[in-house]
């Protein structure tokens, strides 16, 4: 029997996730600035409200709600109307206040979730928790605590995290949070033929099969679009892939105009 899914509304991504995220899970989306983490998260909320009858909450630790609502409007998502209709709440707060709030009984967030019947939540971004603890073990515990609180409230969560590496090098050493979350999506920049492309990879999805290939994606006027896998190259996640032997041979000897 297929487990129920929480579709993100991003066609290619839902296919990679075997239909969508699993209900009541915490899902980490990590990427460099401009890779579309927040757009993916907003699309998840928009799809929940408009297509799945699942109201949502966005916790933002940096971008002001008024700016986030404006950005959503650029993709045709009317977050202002969703808020007016009681289907969405965009909360500006901080990691320390959020943790203090979820630790108590019937806190502000929990009350608000009950009031609007929220089923989805976005936390943008978890990177701000890093200012609460320098020790990676303590940071992992704080992340674990937040994730468990969101699960206790019955929410399916998308948590964004910044990765300062634009190309190539990966986060290392302090990556304990990747073990705590249920799924881990990586958004990367890739340089091919002197042009920057975007690549998406599902690194893990606990309790479910998922695609393991690396897909191209674009940020369009209506949100993220996940497209075909990268063909004819390897080393995509290094940021600077090289052609496979077959493609290199074809480029060298079979492509007209090349020697």
């Amino acid at each position: 029997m297929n487990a129920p899914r929480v579709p993100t509304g991003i066609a290619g991504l839902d296919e990679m996730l075997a239909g969508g995220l699993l209900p009541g899970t915490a899902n980490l989306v990590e990427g460099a600035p401009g890779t579309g983490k927040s757009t993916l998260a907003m699309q998840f909320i928009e799809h929940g409200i408009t297509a799945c009858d699942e109201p949502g909450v966005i916790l933002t630790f940096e971008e002001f709600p008024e700016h986030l609502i404006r950005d959503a409007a650029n993709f045709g998502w009317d977050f202002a109307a969703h808020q007016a209709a009681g289907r969405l709440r965009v909360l500006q707060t901080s990691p320390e206040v959020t943790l203090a709030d979820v630790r108590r009984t019937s806190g502000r967030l929990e009350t608000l979730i009950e009031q609007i019947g929220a089923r989805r939540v976005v936390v943008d971004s978890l990177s701000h928790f890093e200012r609460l603890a320098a020790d990676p073990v303590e940071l992992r515990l704080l992340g674990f605590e937040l994730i468990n609180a969101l699960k206790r409230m019955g929410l399916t969560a998308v948590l964004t995290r910044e990765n300062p590496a634009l190309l190539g090098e990966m986060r290392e050493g302090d990556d304990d949070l990747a073990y705590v979350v249920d799924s881990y999506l990586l958004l990367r920049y890739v340089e091919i033929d002197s042009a920057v492309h975007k690549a998406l990879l599902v690194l893990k999805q606990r309790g479910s099969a998922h695609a393991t290939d690396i897909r191209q994606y674009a940020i369009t006027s209506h949100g993220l679009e996940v497209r075909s896998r990268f063909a004819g190259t390897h080393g995509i996640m290094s940021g600077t892939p090289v052609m496979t032997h077959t493609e290199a041979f074809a480029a060298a000897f079979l492509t007209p105009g090349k020697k």
Partner: protein
Amino acid sequence: MADDQDDAAQLMDDIDPHLLDLLRTRINTFIKWDVVRFFHANPHTADTAENLARYIGRDVRVVEPELRQLAQDGVLEAETLADLRVYTLTADAGTVALLDSFMRACDDRQFRIKAIYHVIRSLRRERERP
């Protein structure tokens, strides 16, 4: 000269009496005006004085007493979470509607001039208080 000043004061008082009272009693500093503008634009904000000061680009030492005053005056609500003092916009519908009227009125330049006049007068009165 005194007559001119009276005329100017009369002109500046020519605004909605509810908004005039709001300016005289609650939004009577520019910091409070900044705070109210921020909460009006981001009504589901819940945060500490330190973070709120950061959001409006002001010094927390200046912002904190103003937040306390706004909470006392019913514009904001304050609660203690663990060891944090957290401020949110009031849930009182009447006050929210009044703040909404104020922010809408601020779209009009003539109103803004009058509002600035009243805030400056309040600040001057505060400074001259023995």
